[in-house]
């Protein structure tokens, strides 16, 4: 599959403030997470793709079609789930979705039929005739997802789609997103909820202060990052800890007797056992600790000297 979305060196300024400073990445397909602390430029990036903020430089390509920012015809291939409400009070759920379908080019009758289909797909078939202002937060999020799908887009831009949802609703929303990926849709998920990205995305783009800090697949990144182990040293004293420190590893003794080791890239379990032998003992327990995306994310921010207070 070719590249669905390509963003090249795009820049956006609000007056003298540069919100995006040469952002470049590609979305090959599947689900891609857009991570970053508050104010990193995630929403601005999504709006820039939709031509909702003017670009001061750069180029965006969708399905190989080139445009400074996506023009009306290309925007027909994109669905958008905004972060905020974006709903018209006084309209029924099905009326709202059908209207947006018509604005994306569907004739009246197919738009209404399609609205019913997508509302059923997102689980709102019982509430579709209710006015949108009576919907709960979770229902509104699903309604926005339905509205973004009514015209059958190739790419769906989701800006904080699980914001304000309870755990069950959040899991259902992620389940829908996973199903959409299976159906061949490409999702660009902007969020600061790292677990959503972990659960859904195969690729992550991290933004900070309008720049891309990192943009790799989660698997590649996990492999390339430092490795974390929890071990229990069978011997007495601190010989093992000193052996580890002498190798430049990070050693964190814990209250439960376990020692947390953080090894740099290139080192592995073999090195840990070797250090234990050199210290004159063995290991009673050896557990490889999965590095969470949160740790990777914070690590990327720290490497770049970023302040993550906004998280």
């Amino acid at each position: 599959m070719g590249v669905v979305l390509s963003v090249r060196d795009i820049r956006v300024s609000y007056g003298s403030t540069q919100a995006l400073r040469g952002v470049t990445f590609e979305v090959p397909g599947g689900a891609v997470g857009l991570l970053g602390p508050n104010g990193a430029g995630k929403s601005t990036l999504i709006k820039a793709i939709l031509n909702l903020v003017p670009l001061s430089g750069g180029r965006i390509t969708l399905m190989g079609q080139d445009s400074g920012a996506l023009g009306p015809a290309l925007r027909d291939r994109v669905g958008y789930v905004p972060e905020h409400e974006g709903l018209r009070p006084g309209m029924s759920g099905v009326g709202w979705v059908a209207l947006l379908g018509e604005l994306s080019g569907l004739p009246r009758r197919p738009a209404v039929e399609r609205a019913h289909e997508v509302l059923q797909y997102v689980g709102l078939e019982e509430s579709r005739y209710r006015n949108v202002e009576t919907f709960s937060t979770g229902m509104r999020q699903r309604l926005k997802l339905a509205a973004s799908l009514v015209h059958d887009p190739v790419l769906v831009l989701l800006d904080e789609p699980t914001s304000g949802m309870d755990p069950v609703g959040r899991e259902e929303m992620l389940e829908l997103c996973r199903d959409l990926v299976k159906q061949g849709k490409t999702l660009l998920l902007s969020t600061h909820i790292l677990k959503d990205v972990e659960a859904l995305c195969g690729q992550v783009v991290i933004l900070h202060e309008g720049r891309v800090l990192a943009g790799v697949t989660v698997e590649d990144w996990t492999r390339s990052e430092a490795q974390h182990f929890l071990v229990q040293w069978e011997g007495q004293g601190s010989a093992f800890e000193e052996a580890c420190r002498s190798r430049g590893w990070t050693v964190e003794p814990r209250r439960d007797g376990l020692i947390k080791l953080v090894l740099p890239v290139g080192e592995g379990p073999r090195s840990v056992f070797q250090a234990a032998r050199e210290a004159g003992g063995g290991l009673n327990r050896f557990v490889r600790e999965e590095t969470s995306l949160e740790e990777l994310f914070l690590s990327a921010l720290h490497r770049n000297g970023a302040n993550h207070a906004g998280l």
Partner: protein
Amino acid sequence: MPVYEQGYEAYTGVRKPLGRRWLPLFRDELLPYFRKRRFVFLLLLAMIPWLYGIALTFLHTQLGDAQWAKELAGQLPQVDEALVAKLMANGFDLFLLLVVCIWVGSGLVARDRRDRTLEVFLGRGLGAGQYLWAKGAALGLFLLLFSLLPTLVLVVFQVGLTGDAGWIFVHSRVLWGSLLYTVVGLGSLTVFVLALSSLGRSPRVVGLVLVGIVFFGDAACGILYGITRNPAIWFFSVAKELEVLACRCLGAPPPHFISLPLWLSALFFAGLAALSAGVLFLRFARRGVLQ
């Protein structure tokens, strides 16, 4: 277990051309007002002066040849350009027109800004030009109910009751004058209201500003005219400018106390339209309206 009971299905049907995307938004803007009784009542109220015009046509043509009928008909005003100008720009209708303008116009863009639906609309295959056209067309259509549409109805009655199609050629200015008034006066007003609505996020605040400009502005001009007796004061009154424009377009003399020079009226509407279009261009081209 997934929440969906029906799998996702791709849409394989046809899509409308880009140029016709404004129609659903236009319809969405228009129809809710016809479901509001108070609004429909206002529109019907505005028809009352025009019923007088139709009644005149009826009396002129149907009273017969009796002497008393001829004498009565001779005392009634003729259905011509002067009468249409009076019907179009009488104080009652102008008041209702401006009320409708404020009622419909204040929320045109401001409501979409408040509800954050503007970026949802513009994020679709709908350009800013089509969005504005849909909104402006909705307001423009309501304003047509105060100018061109009743004029056409009156003309149809006149020709139908007299059986004389030649009346249209003799009084052709009724048609093109009404059209000119509609395009210049009401067109400028529509663009102005759109521009003002794009500056606010609250329809209520935009409405209050419009009330201030239209009605309090008119009252202020009246007070200043009372003091200075200078007709040029009315330059700043939207209602009086519309009245003068209607008279000028239909070749009828405007009331003496607001008899502004033609170039001054033209300057007012050209300036209003240009300024408003400039505001709209800047707000939408630079996307400031989405902030």
